[in-house]
């Protein structure tokens, strides 16, 4: 038996701990995805468009998410005749896998992290790029002209926006001096600008990084203004056209859980993760409550970034395919390189 570790102050045998961690990740991912869909996609969007949104299910439409999930579950799970059986079936689970793996490294408190990897940021970004393969698999396997075009467009876009996503993070990592997410949060805690302590956000010095990160994550999620692959006016639903019922639900959850994951990464890297000015002090008996408060802070910051994503999604038209690529290669990447350059100079010259 491997040494029983302590996780969140709970002493459990090795495999119990894994079960506990899996449950934590699943609930975290589903909670964030559910919150995004219910609060933003159903209610906030409707009020943005001066309408009430779903009001029938539950008081003031609160159980709409439940209704939606049940609707998908009872739908028939069809597969096109000429579809490539195994590849068609595997694509959604690949997406879900890549999303859940991001939550492994996300810290929600001083000791509340499933795996405190030293290469946390690199791991998270690497895992999030697996979804490109899943999209291509789905596009190709559904044997449908429109999903093929959608899949190819999506693959091109995800790869094009992977680069600025990573480059935007480099600035933060240089500033924090470590790839470990807990370290980044800690360094933001002690981060002083011009001698003023306690304002611990990397968003201020790395504002350009934050902008590029949010824009690129918008593109990673293929949301407007980057939703050419799933543009309804031409291709019905891009690579997800042929998916119905449970498989579509998996894709749906995958999409919004990734949104939650990227929002969490943005919150950690730029907005100080679970840190608040009072978090570092000695809590004495209440030490165990620190994780809960950390989770609440983390959740608030993720919802803030989520609000930004959905607000942009429902206010802008969409780019054309070539403009989208040109925007990434000719504007975002040079900007992020410049940002790294300036951070480097600042790091060496000013010991920021």
């Amino acid at each position, binding site marked *: 038996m491997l040494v029983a570790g302590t996780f969140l102050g709970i002493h459990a045998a090795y495999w119990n701990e894994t079960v506990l961690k899996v449950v934590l990740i699943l609930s975290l991912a589903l909670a964030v995805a559910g919150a995004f869909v219910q609060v933003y996609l159903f209610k906030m969007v409707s009020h*943005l*468009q*001066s*309408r009430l949104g779903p009001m029938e299910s539950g008081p003031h439409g609160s159980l709409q998410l439940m209704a939606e999930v049940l609707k998908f579950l009872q739908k028939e799970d069809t597969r096109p005749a000429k579809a490539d059986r195994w590849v068609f079936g595997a694509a959604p689970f690949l997406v879900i896998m890549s999303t859940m793996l991001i939550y492994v490294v996300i810290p929600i408190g001083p000791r509340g992290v499933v795996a405190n990897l030293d290469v946390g940021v690199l791991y998270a970004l690497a895992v999030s790029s697996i979804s490109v393969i899943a999209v291509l698999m789905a596009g190709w396997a559904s044997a449908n*002209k429109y999903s093929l075009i959608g899949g190819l467009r999506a693959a091109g876009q995800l790869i094009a926006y992977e680069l600025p996503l990573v480059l935007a993070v480099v600035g933060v990592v240089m500033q924090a001096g470590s790839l470990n997410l807990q370290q980044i949060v800690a360094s933001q805690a002690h981060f002083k600008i011009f001698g003023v302590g306690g304002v611990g956000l990397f968003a201020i010095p790395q504002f350009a990084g934050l902008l590029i990160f949010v824009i690129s994550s918008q593109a990673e999620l293929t949301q*407007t*203004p980057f*939703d*050419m692959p799933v*543009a*309804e*006016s*031409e291709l019905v639903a891009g690579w997800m056209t042929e998916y119905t019922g449970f498989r579509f639900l998996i894709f749906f959850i995958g999409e919004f859980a990734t949104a939650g994951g990227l929002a969490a990464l943005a919150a950690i890297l730029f907005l100080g993760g679970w840190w608040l000015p009072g978090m570092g002090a000695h809590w004495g008996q209440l030490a165990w409550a620190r994780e809960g408060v950390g989770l609440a802070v983390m959740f608030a910051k993720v919802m803030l970034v989520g609000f930004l994503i959905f607000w942009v999604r*429902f*206010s*802008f*038209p*969409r*780019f*054309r*395919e*070539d*403009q989208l690529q040109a925007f990434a290669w000719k504007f975002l990447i040079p900007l992020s390189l410049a940002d790294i350059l300036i951070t480097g100079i600042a790091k060496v010259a000013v010991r920021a």
Partner: protein
Amino acid sequence: MSVTEQQKIAYVSAQAADARINFELETEGMTLSIGPQHPATHGTLRVLVRLDGEQVVWADPIPGYMHRGYEKLCEVRDYAQVTTLINRIDWLGSFANEVPFILAAEELMGIEAPPRAQYIRTVLFEMARIANLTLFLGDMGVQLGAITPVFYAFRDREYVLNLIEGATGGRFHPNFDRIGGLKDDLPKGWIDETKVVMRRIRRFCDEIDDLLVGNRIFENRCRGIGVIPRDIALEYGLSGANARASGIDFDIRRDEDSPLAWKHADWKVWTHPDGDSFARFWLRQQEVRESTKIVEQLLDGLPAGPIRAKTPARIRVPKGEVWMHTENPLGEMGYYVVSDGSPGGPFRCKIRTPSFSNVSIVPWLLRGVLVPDVITILASLYFILGDIDR
């Protein structure tokens, strides 16, 4: 708003031109059928498109899915029944269809509607235009991916439709125009309500300014796309905002001395030099603003008096022919009425609809264009299927 550089337009036109050259190569492309059920076509228009990769090599719109045979039906109906029929041609601005037909019949019979009726006809004509074009402003956004403007459009258009229903009885099919005047006068309190709604429509136009016109992504998707030079527009008979976008300064309300009351209001006809999709969108937005001004000025100066001139009980239009056209929301709509003096309906009634000519340019316009731009161009031409198919 900086006007597009000339060379940008020249570049895009050149790109379209050399796409036409490689059309002869007859590469084995994918034939895509956009429609007849498709969000970008207002109704059942099918556009057969042959692609070479993402570029359109050959396009052919196929109308006829909604052909109701108006010209044949008009020949077996009398004048009152034809009026109920023709406001279903362009069902978005439906009062505007009745006016030219009734003016044609009045010209043949030598009857002049009283001034109050002419004023109210013009007010309802402009409100039909507002109802029609506000929907376009919202719909152009949704074709390009911005889902929010169309909700604002439907919200504010609802007030205009309620006003039309309050006055005429029908939201979409008013059937309110009669030979010699109107069926009834305005209900009490209608004018003040209209003033409030006109201000609300202007606020909607400002919202569209913020949401779309000022938006750089929208500009990228529309500027320099679907450029129509002036002489090609004339050759195809483009009219309305599509023609004015190519620099043709032609508006029937101002240029012809029509019996309606446009000459009593001062308003401006906007034109745009570029001829691209952005120009067509921007022009229609200014047209809505001008229409709200016309409605307000005419309602202020509304003369008192009867609403309908004396007409014989049995309408007998004397023998003769007349061509009467007005500036409908979509363009120039006209009726060529041939009457043989019999008590029934017109002997022959040729209906010239704006969308028929506006869409006939699509085969020329769509060559060498990318697939997403096909949607933009079709949306910017703004045609209604009832108009094309009659």
